[in-house]
């Protein structure tokens, strides 16, 4: 493995709910090398999504440091976090989160537009679309696509700008087992063929097994790390 792409030290996040401070992260340390497919598991409320939101620049941490590719993102302004989301991170959500009024192709195109890349994706991206199995579904709106197809479109959208990190928050949570396996295999292929760094939240141990490594979170801390899967070997 190469230098860590993500370095997290003593990360804390406290949410203010009414007049009560609710700690979501209580000192997380984590290193993720470039090219790793990392699974994060843990019960609801363990801080997995909060960790994702901070790495993805959706919210700032309360304390601690997060370095991505050497850049400390913990003190970024709102505009700085917007740039981070635009340039370095791609999201895949449990509920797919495609824009319902745009076709699959336009959902991908708008991600390029927001990133300031007006031109069509590189020719190699055609291969990615084939790998995802959605080349012939790009003219359809999300309502006309199956859950599995929607999730694969969301994946194409997430990686169209070549982000350093793909953050997948329960990507198979709304899919049946067949589509879940298809989506996970695509993610593994993306990781293997393109070297895409992937962090995936999941409740499903079988899904977690698709990653190189699993970390377990509980009560805002990482309680078990470096559970290396055979597929890495």
């Amino acid at each position, binding site marked *: 493995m190469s230098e860590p792409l993500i370095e997290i030290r003593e990360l804390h996040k406290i949410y203010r709910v009414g007049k009560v401070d609710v700690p979501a992260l209580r000192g997380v340390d984590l290193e993720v090398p470039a090219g790793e497919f990392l699974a994060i598991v843990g019960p609801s409320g363990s801080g997995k999504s909060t960790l994702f939101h901070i790495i993805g620049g*959706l919210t700032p941490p309360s304390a601690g440091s997060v370095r991505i590719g050497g850049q400390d993102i913990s003190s970024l302004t709102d505009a700085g976090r*917007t740039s981070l989301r635009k340039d370095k991170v791609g999201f895949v959500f449990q509920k797919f989160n495609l824009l*319902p009024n745009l076709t699959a192709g336009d959902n991908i195109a708008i991600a390029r537009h927001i990133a300031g890349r007006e031109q069509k994706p590189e020719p190699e991206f055609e291969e990615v679309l084939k790998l995802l199995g959605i080349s012939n579904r790009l003219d359809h709106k999300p309502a006309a696509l199956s859950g599995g197809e929607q999730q694969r479109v969301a994946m194409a959208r997430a990686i169209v700008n070549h982000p350093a990190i793909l953050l997948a928050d329960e990507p198979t949570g709304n899919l049946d087992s067949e589509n879940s396996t298809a989506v996970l295999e695509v993610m593994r292929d993306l990781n293997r063929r393109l070297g895409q760094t992937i962090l995936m939240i999941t409740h499903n141990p079988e899904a977690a097994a698709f990653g190189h490594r699993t970390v377990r979170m509980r009560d805002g801390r990482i309680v078990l790390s470096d559970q290396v899967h055979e597929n890495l070997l």
Partner: protein
Amino acid sequence: MIAKLVLENLKHKPMRSLLSVFLIAVPVTLILCLVGLSHGMLEDSARRMRGIGADIIVRPPGTSVLTLSGAPIPEKMLSVLQQQSHVALAVGMMVHPITSVTYVTGLDLHSFNQISGGFKYLEGGPFRGPDDAIIDQYYARQNRLHAGDRINGMLNRSWHVSGVVESGKLTRVAVPIRTLQDLTGNTGKISQLFIKADAPANIPTVLAELKQLLPDYNIYTMEEFTSLFTVDTVQGGALRNFIDVMIAIGVVIGFAVVLLSMYMAVLQRTREIGILKALGASRWFILKIILAEAAVLGIGGAIVGIALSFAARALIQALYPASLTQAVTPEWWPIAAGISLVGVLLGALYPGLSAARLDPIEALAYE
């Protein structure tokens, strides 16, 4: 790409979009109708004044451009003016209101024919008795009258329509001047005088002499008088103020409609805004989408508003051809469209800024 997203968003909720466009169109139509009616009625009055064929008009002291009160001028003044040098003809008329926008004019048909060249009769002919009335084609159409019919109730009397004439000469309803004078208690009095000079070159001389002779009277050349028929001069500028108030109301309506419409749209699309933010969309990008959507609604509203003003004009012409004349005012189209755009963009600003400030995590969690 933004244009595509905006259009798809508008297409996604067609009823909301169409209703917004219609509601934005209403003040545009109101403004264009109001301005069109103001211009149309003033131009019509000016045209009918010019149709008399006089060179100079003499009006009593204290009258405004469009209104006359009673008949304060002694009729014998006509013979005095007739004696002035270079005056070829002096004709007196009496004017009396029958509705807020329609007047009946008392005429001596012989002298009126001399100065104006006479009415062009479409039906019937001149007065034959004291209770006869001549009406123009628009008054006839509005009231479904023909030569030989009776007009009941005008000045508490029944009138016989002796003729229907082509519009464009002074009045829509004319009756014999003696009858009108006696009916209104103005025997021997007239409302205004029209003068024809013996040659166009002598008009300034006649005008100067009349002003010297009647210093308190309002005396104008017809060209000068009809040029005063503008929205800025009517009622000391009150019409202009009224139009300004209507424009302000138009802006407020456009503002309120779009504020509500876009506020609803932002609420409905909270999750989509969260998605765009997760993709790296800046606050300005989100605001641009909302403003662009409002601008499309505003432009659509302006176009529909202009189209509806034509429909309103056709309706007015069909129902009230004599009372109301609406001009087509293309010079006001960009003004009305601009007013609507200002209203909708102001209305979209608050929902747009709210959307731009949304927290992406909360927006993504919105159900």
